[in-house]
């Protein structure tokens, strides 16, 4: 066999094998981003996907129970009741007014059942372009 053919086959086998594995991994882990408003308009199969939703934790909404933490996420004038049922402890930055990302699936009763919660601390969060800061950084804007 010509040496170019040998290299071609070797490279082909590696690339095709890894691409197949990537496809399998994609199928296992793909998660759809939606806003809280979008989530409320989803129907049928779209609600069965794994979904990621972002928002601000409503002040005073965090209720910790054994094996579950309930809270409310707010964003774009809408709110979403979330139940966290994951095994890992919630991050230290998960507090009132924190920016949070939750991952899971909507339940039949309208609640969002989250298996993963990520949180960004409100006091360190910086304003989005053209947006308003949510924290003390607001007072630090200057015309200097």
């Amino acid at each position, binding site marked *: 066999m010509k*040496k170019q053919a*040998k*290299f071609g086959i*070797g*490279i082909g086998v*590696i*690339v095709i*094998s*890894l691409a197949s*594995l*990537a496809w*399998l*991994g*994609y199928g*296992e*882990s*793909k*998660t*759809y*981003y*939606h806003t809280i408003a979008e989530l409320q308009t989803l129907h049928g199969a779209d609600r069965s996907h794994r979904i*990621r939703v*972002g928002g601000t934790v409503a002040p005073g909404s965090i*209720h*910790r*129970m*054994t094996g579950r933490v309930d809270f409310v996420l707010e964003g774009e004038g809408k709110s979403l009741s979330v139940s966290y049922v994951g*095994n*890992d*402890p*919630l*991050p*230290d*930055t998960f*507090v009132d007014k924190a*920016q949070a*990302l939750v991952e899971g699936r909507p339940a039949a009763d309208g609640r969002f059942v989250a298996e993963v919660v*990520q949180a*960004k*601390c409100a*006091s*360190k*969060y*910086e*304003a*989005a*372009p*053209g947006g308003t800061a949510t924290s*003390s*950084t607001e*007072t*630090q*804007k*200057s*015309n*200097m």
Partner: protein
Amino acid sequence: MDVFGSFALILAFICAVYAFGGGIAAILTRHPLLVKSTRQAGIATCCLIFLATFSLEYLFFSDNFSVAYVVAHSNRALSTFYKIAALWAGQEGSLLFWSFLLSIYVFSVLIAYRNKNGELMPYVGVILAGVQIFFLTLNNFVASPFKALAVPGANGAMDLVARADGNGLTPLLQYPEMVIHPPNLYSGYTGFTIPFAFALAALLARYPGEKWIHLTRKWTMIAWCFQTAGILLGAHWAYAVLGWGGYWGWDPVENASLLPWLTGTAFLHSVMMQEKRGMMKVWNVWLVFSTFILCILGTFLTRSGVVSSVHAFAQSSIGSWFVGFLAVIFTVCLVAYLKNRDYLKSENQLDAFVSRESSFLFNNLILLVSCIAVLSGTLFPVLSEWLSGSKISVGAPFFNKVNIPIGLLLLFLTGVGPLLAWRKTSVESLKRNFAWPLIIGVVGGSIIFALGYREFYSLICFSLCIFVAATILMEFYRGAKVIRTRSDASFLTSAIELTMRNTRRYGGYIVHMGMVLVFIGLAGAAFNQNVQKEMPPGSSMQIGKYTLVMQNFDTKPEANYTGYRLIVEVLVGGKPLMMLYPEKRVFDTNGETGTMVAIYSTLREDLYVVYAGQSPDTKLPVIHAYLNPLVKWIWFGGVIVVFGTLVALMPNRRAVLVLSAAKQPAAEPLARGLAPSATYRERHD
């Protein structure tokens, strides 16, 4: 000092613009005075950035709470140690820190080569000044760290104010590794600017390939070393501080640091093909370009918030600046390549499938596939939104499915590649070099299988680690044996001597050995265990061979925070082993909390104990305990990798022939016709 810092940054910007514009004029006119003045402007730029950075640190140390950045990231009670780290705690300071570290490299290059490589250096100076201009634009006009604190006044204008105290440093950064992890990682990112500048300059100046490769080798290795250390320190920080029991989560910011490491590693290997055989010239140039582009992309991902990340750094308008800069870099690289591609013609072709060249080719292919997989996975939300309108992300299963087999293939090539011959490897040579390591690897794997560790990938990984370690040790053994027969030195001395005679080769083997240790640690993750339990005083929990007994809890007020600490006794086989103190810290200035994990670490496993909070029903403390096998090997391997890189950076000792009187077998000299008392001995420089 804030005015002084701002002024220094503006002056630095002006000097950089002169170094850039004057440099182009110097290239066109070749006027010696212009060449010299632009070089000096480049040096002045660096010195002014140093001054600006030191002045910001001074503002932290002097608790100047009239500066917005100091208010946001420091407070009076913050320790001196963390006031250093506060420099890079926010966006503005981080970007200044980028400029600062880049200036250290630029300063070193401009001074080191001030009287050398006259044809190339004006191009290098212009490219470096161009990169500095971009970051100085951000430092001066987009994200200045010297902005005064101001609040809206009664008439709608902003009034300057000063606060009595600052907001404090985020608790996640109040950990010793956070003082050394970002400087290492940023030194890696910024360091890759130097090989990029030399590669692009050589292409533009049509400078001989082997010369620029030789010039950039040590700079690439320095940047790679920092990047490696930075990634591992970041992983250790995530492990020890975030309290989730892991060290790598495929977070976009973590991935961003891995991308240039992958292409940088590929370049360090493929560059040998160009040195030895004059091959892969186009590939090498684009690997260097890609590495630098990925460094900027990494900084962009970290700073722009374009992809959601647990690293709550920023979500800001700065992203558009980076996109513009990336577009400019790519365009310049592409135009330079298209204009001068005839200069990059390969001098040789691949001769055989089983050869050193072939192993480098596959090494590069695998690293590149890994890079593409990590990059596409990281940017998937952005790409999918462009292509389909749906924003989709992929998680750990995607990254693991691709990268675990890639890691194992790379590990295999780590063992095989260095022992294959250039051009073509004979069957006899394969037998000679690999028979014993293969037998040792198979026997080692069988023993591990018999011991019950049968997770597929981990078993393959352990077997390969044994195989690769055997190939490396045999290389040291063979070389040291030759020296030993000549010098009568001990085996260890001979191995050190061998290493010092060819630091690049044997330093590389040490790096490979470090990577083997890292892989052993990674393979241990398949056997992790964890338990979570409410723990009233006097109760116990079992994990592996360890019994954790909850003795009590206490409160420990400190200068900057209050620590809520659990006192946990660890028993093994009913006998006391040690005390562990997992802790929650509540910081006084902002009420934020931080977790301090208690870890009992051995080579066999880590006992990792987290105070996970109080049970909402019973108010009892909850302990989450993990048993993570072999994690220590990762950190130890990282140290070996860094050590090996430092060895490879050292100059070779030259073996010099010296005639001297020495003990000598009686018959041999005469038989060979040499003077009776003369023999070869080696002297070191």
